[in-house]
């Protein structure tokens, strides 16, 4: 029997809430199938399964928050779809993995009951009963999603707030206007605006608030800065050949199929990394090289924070295929709707935040990876070559490397290889 665990979708992830099972016991699972939706700090993630077999048993009910590594389900690799395996009595004792700390072991029994059991602390239940609060309308913030006293008190406060608001027609209230309009101040407001001003409690499984992403980024970057001794290298690369190759390629294409320089840069990085494999690795109790080259591409969110979806096996994809992946993945990253493999499989990261107005970007490595490549904006600069000075489109490429894993020489070889590919775009 294969144990299917709550995956870690990044160094910063400690737990996740199982929002929905997409498969049910008896279903046949193919590699890559989406088995469940899990809510994390980085949004609602579709979790893929990488084993083939029949889904034998679900061990965690929907709505539960469990630590990374908790067994979520059992998969029978020899099972036949739609059939329970023989010789395995239904009530077979399942070795449930002890979760971190002393969190309550998750049992599946509850899921079989007709009505969903509401988890609330004894105190929360007592207060809810006295205050006539319906616990099913509250989402818990306690251990394993249990409703706590604070959750009930918030519900009471919200109820009273709403009741309060339904009374007067127009009351004075401070409402912060949209920042760019700068309309903050005291105003007479009507009912509709007041309602908008009341923060609604987000139901479980919705897009996480800006703060959750912020704290996910904060955790990962703090870990990086705390643990990884970064070294930085920089190279100025002449982009004339690459850009004219792109121009040529794009002139034949309808607007929907046109390529961005980013697609070319990703492919060039993938090929250069293939020549310097020490950078395509993770540092976990020593350097561990990765076979696949999965490039994490930093996508900035307009509301703040970043998502880093992986472009799988970028070295084996054509520039067109990479562009297609970008077209698919960037909108989903912005909507916080990535798949588990896209969040967790990156082996090296590219940031091209510099394309805004910065000339150079010095990245912070996403642990446990060992390198991040930064592309600045492409802009015209004087460039000397063969004793002649010319004006060329230039990109400043930086490499931040983990000095535990590699040395400057490795990084320098990578930048050399990258330059070689960008000078020969037809080889990409």
């Amino acid at each position, binding site marked *: 029997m294969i144990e299917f665990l709550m995956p870690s979708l990044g160094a910063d992830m400690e737990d996740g809430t199982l929002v929905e099972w997409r498969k049910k016991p008896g279903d046949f699972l193919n590699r890559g199938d989406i088995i469940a939706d899990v809510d994390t700090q980085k949004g609602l993630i579709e979790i893929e399964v990488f084993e083939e077999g029949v889904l034998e048993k679900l061990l965690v009910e929907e709505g539960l928050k469990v630590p990374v590594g908790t067994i979520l389900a059992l998969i029978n690799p020899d099972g036949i779809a739609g059939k329970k395996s023989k010789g395995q009595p239904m009530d077979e004792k399942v070795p449930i993995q002890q979760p971190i700390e002393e969190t309550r072991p998750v049992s599946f029994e509850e899921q079989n009951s007709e009505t969903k059991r509401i988890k609330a602390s004894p105190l929360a239940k007592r207060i809810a009963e006295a205050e006539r609060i319906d616990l099913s309308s509250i989402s818990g913030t306690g251990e394993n999603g249990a409703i706590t006293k604070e959750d009930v008190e918030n519900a009471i406060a919200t109820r009273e707030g709403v009741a309060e608001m339904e009374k007067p027609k127009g009351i004075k209230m401070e409402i912060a206007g*949209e920042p*760019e*309009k700068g309309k903050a101040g005291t105003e007479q407001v009507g009912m509709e605006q007041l309602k908008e001003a009341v923060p609604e409690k987000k139901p479980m499984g919705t897009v996480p608030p800006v703060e959750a992403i912020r704290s996910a980024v904060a955790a990962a970057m703090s870990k990086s800065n705390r643990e990884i001794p970064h070294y930085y290298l920089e190279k100025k690369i002449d982009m004339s050949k690459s850009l004219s190759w792109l*121009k040529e390629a*794009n*002139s034949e294409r*309808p*607007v*929907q199929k*046109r390529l*961005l*320089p*980013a697609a070319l840069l990703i492919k060039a990085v993938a090929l250069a990394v293939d020549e310097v494999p020490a950078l395509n690795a993770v540092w976990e109790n020593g350097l561990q090289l990765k076979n696949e080259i999965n490039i994490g591409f930093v996508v*900035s969110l*307009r*509301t703040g924070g970043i998502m880093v979806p992986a472009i799988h096996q970028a070295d084996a994809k054509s520039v067109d295929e990479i562009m297609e992946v*970008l077209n698919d993945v*960037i909108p989903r990253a912005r909507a916080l709707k990535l798949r588990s493999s896209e969040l967790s499989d990156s082996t090296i990261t590219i940031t091209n935040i510099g*394309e*805004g*107005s910065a000339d150079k970007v010095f990245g912070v490595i996403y642990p446990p990876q060992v390198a991040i490549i930064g592309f600045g904006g492409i802009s015209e600069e004087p460039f000397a070559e063969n004793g002649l000075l010319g004006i060329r489109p230039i990109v400043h490429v930086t490499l931040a490397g983990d000095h535990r894993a590699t040395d400057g020489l490795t990084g320098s070889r990578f930048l050399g290889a990258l330059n070689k590919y960008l000078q020969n775009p037809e080889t990409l």
Partner: protein
Amino acid sequence: MNKSEILNTIHELLKNIAPEMDPTLLGQEENIREALNIDSYDALQFIVALCEKLKIDIPEQDYGKTATIKSLLTYLEKKII
């Protein structure tokens, strides 16, 4: 399609890309991408959307003419009429 209809279309498409911004507040000569914080990917999406909505083609060498509201309007007017 008259000039104000084109302008409305531009505003609408920009709003899709930068929902938290108000494109009607853009100055005529302001650089759209810089003002609305639009990256190259979204800039391309904007052009794709313009082409699809207005049923035109904007070749890559003309991207430079789409930088400000004023230049974009002038360019699109010529394209459509």
